[in-house]
């Protein structure tokens, strides 16, 4: 065997990951993905071992619910054949390895910096001299947007090449939000500090990232979370999904200047996040999820309160959706805008909503279940057109689905088992991988410990990491005035990408 097989949240000794030669490594991993739409790369990263770099590649198989992990040792200055030349799934990952470790690729088609990490290999690369793709033409023009966003949300630079109103090419340059999250996990020694770092990866996916971190930590420590802990996490994940999807529907309506939808959906998001405040003291769910603990137990009183809130929420939500999806002027903006084909999402390996919009089933709640999802028998919602309309419909359907799950979950509130945070320290020389389906898609956290059981390497992959490319493909041949609606329909995270 030249790879090892694990399941979600399983800890294995690092020595169990077979170390193979680079040629074998590239054949194995690109071979996994050839003609297998059920497989995709969940994480591919390098970590420093002495003066060498250990590459670890994790390929998830949605049908067998397994993850295939293999590794390879290379030198930092090596010039290698790239995975990307064979499969675009690895494009961003290899750029990251190139940026961080100076690994050269001789046939990578787009070897540009990813996020200008502070510990990058080549310090002469700066955000001010990003090598943009450009054109020599009298007819075409370039439009640069950002890094200051028109709605001052988060910074990112978008460079369009247009023929009049039509977009031919979009290049997205990020990295302005880089905070060194992965280094912070190693630098901060207290568990609480690390959890807080996990909460700050992306402000809109607090539950998702903190759950992933908690799973990693608990798995490393050999801690089996009790039912009430996983119950709270699953519930919080679904509530977060509801709140953000509702907010996104509002934002999409704002972008097409549909005031009624914008204000009604905006209002509907509030009771959900206010409930999070009632439950855990924070509207964005900060402080709610803690490794090994049920910080804010979910009580039957809270369950009643939540049921009341949902009873008020549901009719308004359904009525507003009926209005929105019957409004000709809104439909004319949604339909056939920002299309990404099935072949494209498959080849670039998008995850979450950005895959399900085009008929590609990627949902770790079903394929690599965690928490209480095995009991919920989750059926992913799949649309097939890959346009803004599909993405909006997915949101609508997922809110309804989450509401159903929450209603089921709060029927039986589990007994509180007491705060049993008796932690062993993490196992030494171990490797753990955790997949969580946040509202945006698959979140992947990986950790490696050293011989003392200290964190030696921590790797975060937010779904935005490869989904940004889907946005760049979506806007091709669209009007430039439709870019904002395309962007909002994806609603990707800048800070989740930049870490």
């Amino acid at each position, binding site marked *: 065997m030249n790879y090892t097989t694990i399941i979600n949240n399983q800890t294995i000794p690092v020595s169990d990951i077979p170390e193979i030669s680079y040629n074998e490594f590239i054949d194995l991993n690109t071979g996994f993905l050839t003609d297998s739409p059920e497989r995709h790369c969940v994480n591919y990263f390098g970590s420093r071992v002495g003066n060498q770099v250990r590459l670890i590649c994790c390929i998830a198989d949605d049908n067998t619910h397994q993850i295939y992990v293999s590794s390879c040792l290379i030198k930092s200055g090596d010039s290698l054949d790239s995975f990307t030349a064979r499969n675009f799934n690895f494009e961003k990952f290899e750029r990251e390895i190139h940026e961080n470790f100076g690994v050269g690729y001789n046939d990578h088609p787009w070897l540009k910096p990813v996020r200008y990490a502070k510990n990058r290999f080549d310090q002469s690369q700066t955000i001010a001299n990003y090598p943009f793709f450009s054109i020599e033409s009298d007819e075409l023009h370039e439009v640069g947007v950002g890094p200051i966003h028109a709605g001052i949300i988060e910074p990112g630079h978008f460079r369009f090449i247009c023929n009049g109103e039509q977009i031919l090419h979009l290049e997205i340059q990020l990295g302005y939000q880089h905070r060194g999250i992965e280094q912070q996990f190693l630098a901060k020694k207290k568990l609480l500090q690390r959890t807080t770092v996990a909460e700050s990866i992306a402000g809109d996916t607090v539950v998702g990232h903190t759950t992933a971190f908690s799973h990693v930590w608990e798995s490393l420590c050999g801690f089996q979370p009790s039912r009430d802990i996983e119950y709270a996490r699953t519930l919080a994940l679904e509530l977060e999904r509801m709140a953000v999807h509702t907010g996104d529907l509002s934002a999409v309506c*704002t972008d097409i*200047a549909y005031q009624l939808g914008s204000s009604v959906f905006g209002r509907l998001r509030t009771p959900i996040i206010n409930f999070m405040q009632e439950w855990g003291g924070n509207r964005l769910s900060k402080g709610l999820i803690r490794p090994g603990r049920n910080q804010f137990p979910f009580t039957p009183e809270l369950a009643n309160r939540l049921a009341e809130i949902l009873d008020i929420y549901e009719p308004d939500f359904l009525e507003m959706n009926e209005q929105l999806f019957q409004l000709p002027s809104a439909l004319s903006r949604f339909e056939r*805008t920002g299309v990404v084909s099935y072949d494209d999402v498959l080849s670039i390996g998008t995850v979450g909503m950005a895959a399900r919009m085009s008929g590609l089933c990627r949902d770790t709640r079903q394929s690599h279940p965690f928490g209480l999802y095995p009991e919920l028998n989750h059926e992913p919602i799949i649309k097939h057109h890959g346009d803004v309309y599909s993405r909006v419909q997915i949101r609508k359907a997922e809110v309804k689905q989450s509401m159903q799950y929450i209603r089921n979950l709060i029927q039986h509130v589990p007994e509180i088992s007491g705060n049993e945070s008796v932690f062993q320290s993490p196992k030494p020389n171990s490797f753990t991988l955790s997949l969580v389906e946040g509202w945006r898609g698959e979140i992947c956290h990986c950790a490696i410990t050293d011989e003392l059981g200290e964190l030696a390497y921590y790797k975060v992959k937010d779904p935005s990491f490869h989904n940004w490319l889907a946005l760049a493909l979506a806007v091709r041949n669209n009007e430039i005035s439709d870019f904002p609606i395309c962007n909002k329909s994806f609603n990707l995270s800048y800070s989740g990408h930049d870490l």
Partner: protein
Amino acid sequence: MLSLILILIAAAFFTGVIVRVKSMASGRKGPGILQPLFDVFRLFKKGVVYSETTSFVFQIAPTIYFSSVVMAMLVVPFGQSKGILSFDGDFIFFAYILALGKFFSIISAMDTGSSFEGMGASREALYSMFAEPAFFILMGSLALLTGHTNFQEMFSALHIGSYISYALAILGTFVLMMIAMVENSRMPIDDPKTHLELTMVHEVMILDNSGFDLGLILTAGYLKFAIYGALVVNLFIGVFPLQYSIPMFFVIQFVLASGVGFIESFMARFRMSHNAQFIFVLTSVSLLIFFGALLILGKFV
């Protein structure tokens, strides 16, 4: 003189009514009716910032734009009473003095060298170009119908012959209001509230304007709405005495403003590529008016 005073009063509340209607439609209380007016007073007290890449064109353009709108306002009559300026062919003067102002606002947007503003300028130029035939066919038909070529005589003679002319007036209302929406960059052509430069038309052209200049541009926008509203009123009130026509003026202006507010609340804006088609439809409606005028005159064989 009368028309000038009425238009100024209407301009003071027109935009405020739109904003208020939109607020109420979305369940909010909304600002006072005169808030837009306070906003421009605030801007008038401020200084101006000019970007280093701009030339004198950028500095004179807001003033020229504002004066062009004021000039256009002067030729608008009110029923039987003439505007301050009135001469044969003044509707042509009206259209092209506005076009002159628009020309300057377009070149001032180009002057900033911003890629957004160039895009906005090209959109604005395209839409104005499409709206122009609609206006001239409408006015030409009225001139044909009445045999006069100035606003005041045209409007006062409009309803003397036949009641079918009221049907034409209603079609004319539609055309003029839609032209007003295009000119003022309101929905469904443009979204005045958006913060996204890439989807803006008019708003993006004035991104670089600030302080006093911005105040002038906003005031010109308020005036434009009231001017088009006044033209609409003129289509109906030609034969009424003043004690009826003045209340009618305010009622019609108010209905138009609320109508704009309702449209903006309950529909999404058009996709940019559909705008040109939509504006072109106005020309077809104008042609209907033209054929209507021919019918009334019995020139159809």
